[in-house]
């Protein structure tokens, strides 16, 4: 199908933008940042314009050309509603993270380059349908994210960055082994996901391959017991790093689980789904309970991400229409709410120099705009109706009621515990009095911009979800594999 190079532009533009930003230091004072915003803005424009081009029903856009024929590797980029929505999130959060890290003075060139490369790699993951290219971008994502944490982080950032990298690299090996197996055992050496989907893979092998794939996705998702890297990575990462980590990298795990298991290993997925459900259920409670016990604000929000993404896992493994749609909506909603919370906590950290909940407080008295912003995303964190988070979680719960009542009640328990940790965070940060936040200057316009953007997105998708849910329709139909839970 003759399509022009829209999708490749979505990957290459941020990539070369990164390289340009690296050397843009000489042109002007903030040249790197403007180059970064230009690249991301252009990519966003192309993305929006591609939405209006009429795809062939299932795919909004599809591109296919050879990369290394002798290896059997060709670049197949396809975009449907789900990847379209996640691409919008990716580019939007890219711009937000560039704006947020405007004040960082150490090596701004490499900083913006790393931000852009993370976005480029994630775009690659969301678009590629050639398994080796998917694995290539999957592992590539780690390198810039690692850079972000290890260079601009706080505290003992090397250990956190190394832990993040080793966890994900090792899990990525499982994915690589499975992809190489798929490539090697076909009738001809090819990694084309569509071809592999038609192939009749014996049941036992399907389960093994799915374990390889799921291993990588669950570490990135993060679901306990594979989540150990997330809290450290989040606490030590700079604000922009946390935003990209929470808003983007976590979503690639969820996207992978949403897209490939039902497509490539239907039977394998049907057998492993109940275990996925159980793991998700455990994760949502475990993450929520741990969040209640944290004293570091960022660590608390990190554990909330574990809980929310475990709910997304339950949604995907549910396999029914509502749970899958809920998982899709929750993915997008969590991207917005988690990155906004990180942004606020980062801004607070820049002003007070601490993230320890015991020392914070008194925002209501000194910085009303700050408190208002916290209130909006506090309500998103505990899935208040009217926010997209509630829509996602309510859909997942409806789906779970269709699958199994126990899992539904566990999700509800997680919802209730979410109130405990959300109010704890809010009470410690906004209410009360603290001498640290005495002379606190309120949010500047530059910081308000991204927050308003994220707040409008959360509330818009919460109140008028038709646009988002319509987009996800196609992907959900493809991923429907009703699961019989014993």
């Amino acid at each position: 199908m003759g399509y022009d190079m829209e999708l490749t532009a979505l990957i290459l533009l941020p990539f070369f933008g990164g390289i340009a930003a690296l050397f843009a230091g000489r042109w002007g004072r903030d040249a790197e940042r403007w180059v970064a915003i230009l690249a991301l803005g252009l990519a966003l424009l192309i993305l929006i314009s591609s939405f209006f081009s009429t795809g062939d029903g299932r795919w909004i856009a599809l591109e296919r050309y050879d990369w290394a024929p002798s290896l059997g590797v060709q670049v197949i980029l396809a975009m449907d509603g789900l990847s379209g929505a996640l691409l919008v999130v990716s580019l939007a959060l890219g711009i937000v993270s560039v704006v947020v890290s405007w004040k960082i003075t150490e090596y701004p060139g490499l900083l913006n380059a790393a931000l852009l490369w993370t976005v480029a790699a994630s775009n690659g993951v969301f678009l590629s349908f050639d398994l080796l290219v998917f694995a290539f971008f999957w592992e590539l994502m780690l390198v810039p994210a690692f850079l972000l944490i290890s260079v601009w982080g706080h505290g003992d950032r090397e250990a956190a960055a190394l832990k993040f990298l080793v966890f994900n690299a090792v899990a990525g090996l499982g994915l690589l082994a499975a992809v190489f197996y798929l490539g090697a055992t076909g009738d001809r050496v090819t990694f084309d996901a569509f071809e592999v989907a038609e192939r009749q893979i014996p049941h036992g092998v399907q389960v093994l391959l799915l374990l390889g794939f799921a291993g990588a996705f669950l570490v990135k998702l993060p679901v306990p017991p594979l989540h150990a890297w997330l809290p450290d990575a989040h606490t030590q990462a700079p604000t922009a790093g946390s935003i990209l980590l929470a808003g983007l990298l976590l979503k690639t795990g969820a996207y992978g689980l949403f897209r490939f298991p039902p497509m490539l290993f239907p039977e394998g997925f049907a057998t492993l789904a109940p275990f996925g459900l159980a793991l998700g259920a455990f994760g949502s409670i475990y993450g929520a309970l741990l969040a209640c016990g944290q004293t570091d604000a960022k660590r608390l929000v990190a554990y909330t991400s574990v809980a929310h993404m475990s709910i997304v896992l339950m949604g995907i493994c549910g396999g029914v229409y509502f749970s899958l749609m809920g998982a899709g909506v929750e993915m997008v909603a969590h991207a917005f709410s988690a990155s906004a919370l990180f942004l606020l906590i980062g801004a607070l950290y820049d002003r007070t120099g601490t993230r320890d909940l015991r020392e914070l407080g008194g925002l209501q008295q000194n910085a009303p705009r700050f408190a208002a912003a916290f209130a909006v995303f506090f309500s998103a964190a505990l899935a208040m109706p009217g926010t997209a988070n509630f829509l996602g979680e309510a859909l997942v719960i409806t789906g779970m009621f269709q699958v199994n009542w126990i899992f539904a009640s566990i999700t509800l328990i997680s919802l209730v515990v979410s109130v405990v940790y959300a109010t704890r965070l809010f009470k410690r940060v906004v209410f009360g009095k603290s001498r640290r936040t005495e002379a606190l200057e309120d949010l500047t316009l530059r910081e308000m911009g991204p927050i308003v953007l994220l707040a409008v997105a959360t509330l818009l998708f919460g109140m008028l979800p038709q646009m988002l849910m319509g987009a996800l329709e196609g992907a959900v139909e493809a991923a429907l594999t009703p699961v019989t839970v014993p």
Partner: protein
Amino acid sequence: MPSFPALVPVILLGVGAVAAMLAAPRLPGLSRWIAGTALVCASVALALRLGAPASLSELLADDRLARLAGLGICLAGLGSLAFLRPAGPSKEGPALLLLATLGGTVLAGAIHAASLFLGLELITLALVALFVLPLDRPALEAGYKFLILGAAAAATLLMGLALAHAATGSLALAALGGEGVLLALAAALLLAGLAFKFALVPFHMWTPDAFTGAPGAAAAFAGAASKIAVVVALIRLDAVGLPEVWALGLAAFGGASMLLGNIAALRQDSLARMLGYSSVAHAGYIAAALGAGAASAPAAAGFYILAYAPALLAALCVATLLGRETRIGDLRGLVWSRPLAGAALAVALVSLAGLPVSAGFFGKYAIFSALIEARAWLLLGLALLGSALGAYYYLRFVALIFRRVEAPAHAPLRWTDGLLLALATGVTLLLGVRPDLLLDLVRTALG
């Protein structure tokens, strides 16, 4: 007699070595230049004849594989020459390097017992001299250990060849394939001899000490160039269809090397010693792939070693740049104080770890596919575990390179080091994006 053009590279190297040896005492600069030009001419000669039709002679096979391997060895030799520091009284470094490259080119084309033995021993003895060059205590110690083990391995190799000769009456390597106890014993001893040079586990003990004690360039040559030659020898012997012990031995030693090499390198603080252990591990990957005996194994082994060489050269060049005993602490903020060295080391380590946009990623792809194709599940498991451990200890160093620190700017790099680092990083990144360039080359070479 093979056609004259086939021998041009060998002759060039030989003459170059002698000339460099003569010029060494009084004109060390000149001897480096002679060595450099000899290597460049040899490489150009080999490169030009890459496409020429293959021709076979009693001792040396002048086929595309030999030329590609010879080209690889000469380039690796050139790379090592770039950062060979003239240390202490002895200035014969370049000449010895040329001798070793000559040995490598001979070994690459060896199809006869004599040329195999001559090539191997020429590399070993030249390397012993190279190790000892600085004449200080660690270098002497590394040289001595290399000599003792090298000689033992040579004797083992010869014993194998002798038994084969006694059994078949012919010294051609092709005659090694066959049934019978004598031939099996011969194959075993032959593998032992080659395994030493390839640094597989029971014979690997010289590698870490060599990488730490010997000068960086010598260790680089031993780790990269000589291994290319040995891989070619292994591929040729593989094609002969040796008795079962050969494949079994290779697989067993490969598995053991992958495991022990990676575990031993886990918490090494010295960069060179970690690279030593990791070169044992990488030898393990290649041996396992060859041992598993899949159809795509030789191509995978060839691609892997050619992708491994530039990364090792760059890493060791930076190690020597930073002084003899570079501990992990010295790397703090390297990319900010010496941008090119830091970036080159980072890309090299990322490639050794096998992360994307580096040749290592597709090297891992080739090896894993070969293991999968051969259904060698245990070896695949060990390879996965190995690269998992590898991900940790390589990236441990990378973590520090990007640390934010206000290090004063260092003296600018010498142009040869800078050129080598730039070229090595460029090749690694290029292969990371377009691996098929090299893979097609290796596949056509293997016919």
